[in-house]
């Protein structure tokens, strides 16, 4: 059993995972969106959950990674990915946000020593609309990260099952 798996059996996310999650997100945004994520201030409120992308992880690491943002931010991310204007991006927003979430999840698991080989990703799912409650069955802790993309907050969270 590797250290990460050992920590998960103790119902906590291993120390060091939050910086790796942040690095994973930064790399995806810099490479694929040509945009530098900024750290959120302490007074930054969470973004409205108008777009929520989810990717499941199964195997040695089980859980779900979510990315939440406003519709306006989702549109801007899509424009950045495709180099298109907002009108053209409208039809592609779900797909784009799902792919960003998918790449953050993949990049994160590839950085975890001993986890990458034994962990599979699901295809992404994207929920639109804020009127829902997320009931996580995670029992091994969670990580939450709020960062600023082009002036607007985005939230990335990892809920982990032991």
């Amino acid at each position, binding site marked *: 059993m590797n250290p990460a798996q050992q920590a998960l059996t103790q119902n906590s996310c291993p120390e060091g995972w939050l910086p790796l999650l942040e690095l994973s997100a930064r790399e995806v945004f810099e490479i694929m969106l040509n945009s530098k994520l900024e750290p959120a201030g302490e007074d930054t409120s969470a973004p409205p959950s108008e777009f929520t992308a989810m990717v499941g992880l199964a195997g040695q690491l089980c859980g779900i990674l979510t990315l939440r943002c406003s519709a306006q931010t989702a549109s801007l991310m*899509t424009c950045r990915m495709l180099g298109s204007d907002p009108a053209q991006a409208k039809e592609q927003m779900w797909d784009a946000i799902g*792919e960003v979430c*998918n790449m953050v999840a*993949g990049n994160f698991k590839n950085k975890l020593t001993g986890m990458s080989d034994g962990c*599979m990703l699901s295809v992404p799912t994207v929920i639109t609309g804020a009127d829902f409650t997320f009931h996580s069955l995670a029992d091994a802790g969670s990580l939450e990260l709020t960062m600023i993309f082009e002036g607007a907050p985005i939230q990335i969270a990892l809920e982990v099952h032991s």
Partner: protein
Amino acid sequence: MNKVKALIVDDSSVMRKIVERSLRQAGIDLAEVREAGNGAEALGVLKESTVDLILCDINMPVMDGLEFVKQLQTADNGKGVPVVMITTEGSESHVVQALSAGARGYIRKPFTPDQVKEHVIPILEAKQ
């Protein structure tokens, strides 16, 4: 280098567009780009058209990229066309599985046009 007919296989239409743009940014002169949303669709595309290069995701519904590469080796159409995987699955076992199945290259997402160039150009040059 001659003009290239490419097939891009990914369940995300956004990613298919990004891969196409990356090929162009890598300096590859594309004569035609065909698209498929999964491995089964890609096999269908290859029944009706010939391509010089296939860029393929791994995690896709219906038929994933690894199964597609395996089936391509015995397919009537498309056998011998170089396949480069472009995927979030970055583990060594996935790389080994893909290359063993017949893929010629492996690019991890997120990727830059330079990485596409580095992996794809030598394959195309060797083919020509």
